[in-house]
């Protein structure tokens, strides 16, 4: 069985209590490092955690956050969806046949080597200011990562389970839902998680060139006015929201989909 050896021996896995403690310690260490940097480096220019929190509160109170946040989220999401469909289709093609693999490989290698910032410039030249430029820049930068992940996921499907299904005359629809989707679910989750994370970075970069709204645009604007704490606050507010998305949506969903592993004491989550 392909999944039977994935778990670590129990003594190496942490208990639930340890998990929270570990997360807390890493968070505190991160904040401490940030604070240390602001102390060591020049003269109060770089805003520390406290200044950032204060600026964030101000930002939230002013209400201006939401329109820009919405713009950035919307475009990140559109770019990600585009990347997901294009990347997913190429990944599936690579996974299921040789033609697909040889067709997609050069596209992906080339696409991987082009920096997101270059795409942002190119799409701005093509589409001008507006929604299209950052969305397309995000989609074309992110799709190769998704392709690679889905490709590996599709390649890992156990051909013996497909043969078994065929010998029991299972329909294509049932095969897809009961056999293919669960086997590529881990790859799908990784693709979504990394895809969204990269999308958001590319989107905010692209906004610098290609937009006059959004979190990235406002952060760079604040930066150019020497309002460093506000620039940091824009980033911080977004980080919190992405974190909540992970905890409130992705994690619970993942826990549900992989319940069978947990029950089987796989301990991968």
């Amino acid at each position: 069985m392909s999944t039977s050896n994935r778990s670590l021996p129990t003594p190496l896995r942490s208990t639930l209590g340890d998990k929270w403690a570990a997360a807390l310690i890493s968070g505190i260490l991160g904040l401490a490092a940030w604070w240390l940097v602001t102390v060591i480096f020049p003269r109060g220019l770089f805003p520390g955690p406290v200044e950032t929190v204060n600026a964030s509160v101000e930002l939230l109170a002013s209400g201006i956050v939401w329109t820009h946040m919405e713009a950035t989220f919307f475009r990140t999401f559109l770019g990600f969806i585009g990347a997901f469909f294009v990347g997913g289709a190429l990944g599936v093609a690579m996974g299921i046949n040789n033609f697909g693999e040889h067709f997609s490989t050069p596209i992906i290698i080339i696409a991987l080597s082009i920096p997101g910032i270059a795409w942002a410039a190119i799409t701005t030249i093509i589409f001008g200011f507006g929604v299209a430029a950052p969305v397309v820049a995000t989609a074309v930068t992110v799709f190769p990562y998704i392709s690679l992940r889905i490709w590996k996921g599709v390649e890992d499907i156990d051909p013996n389970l497909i043969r078994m299904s065929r010998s029991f005359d299972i329909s294509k629809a049932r095969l897809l839902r009961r056999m293919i989707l669960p086997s590529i679910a881990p790859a799908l989750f990784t693709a979504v998680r990394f895809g969204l994370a990269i999308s958001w970075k590319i989107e905010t970069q692209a906004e610098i060139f290609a937009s006059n709204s959004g979190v990235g645009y406002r952060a760079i604007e604040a930066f150019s006015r020497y309002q460093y704490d506000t620039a940091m606050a824009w980033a911080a507010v977004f980080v919190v929201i992405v974190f909540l998305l992970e905890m409130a949506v992705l994690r619970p969903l993942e826990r549900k989909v992989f319940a069978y592993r947990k029950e089987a004491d796989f301990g991968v989550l």
Partner: protein
Amino acid sequence: MASEVQQSTESDDSAGIAHGTSTAGAIHVRNLTKEFDTEEGVERVFEDVSFDIEPGSFVTLIGRSGSGKSTMLNIISGVLEPTAGRVDFEATQDSDVTLGHVFQSPRLLPWNTCVENIEYVHENNPEYTRELAEEYLDLVGLSNHYDKYPSQLSGGQRQRVGITRALSIDPEILIMDEPFSNLDEITAESLREELISIWQKLGKTVFFVTHDITEAIELSDRILMLGNGTIFDDMSIDLERPRDVDSEEFLKVRQDAINRFHSVK
């Protein structure tokens, strides 16, 4: 099902499988040839092979590794197309014959429980209920494991789920490809005994593949020996059941089988 694999139906027997009285579950293999196109050219696995399998009988195909046993089973189950020749079945009702396939490894869906794994193959069975799955799991001694995942079972228990899954569709023909060869001998032996008792109870045709001569003699009414691209021997085993592998008659038959098997290089 492969296009060359034909169905014929048995319309005078509509009340399920009747022991010994019908020809439902018979398999007729006619002039079967199988070639694979490989990089070194055409590889012929076997040529012009014909045999018939009586309904309700337990027939075993033995042969060395690479002799084409799995290929033969895959052609019979419709997973592979023959290069030439055909396979005919006789079914109980006016429908396709049903085949239950048991594989060398159990091939269970790891994300589904035992019951769900059985439910998976009942796509076109409106009468499927959870009770049916449970009943079949009871049959192989898995009453306490309905809702366990494959990773929570031992190798032997997983193999039993695989056997149960095949039995649960109430197939006229059960085909089994070295189902016990990955198991330790003690587990394998108890599963063999279970298989024989289920076979005697349900009266299915069983077409079994192994490379273990002792196992073949213990289980079968008849042994077909595959080698050099043909069935070179067809041996009836008339030992009484239950069979004692240490008895003198058994050892005599076994020696005879070994001699016949090794007569062809």
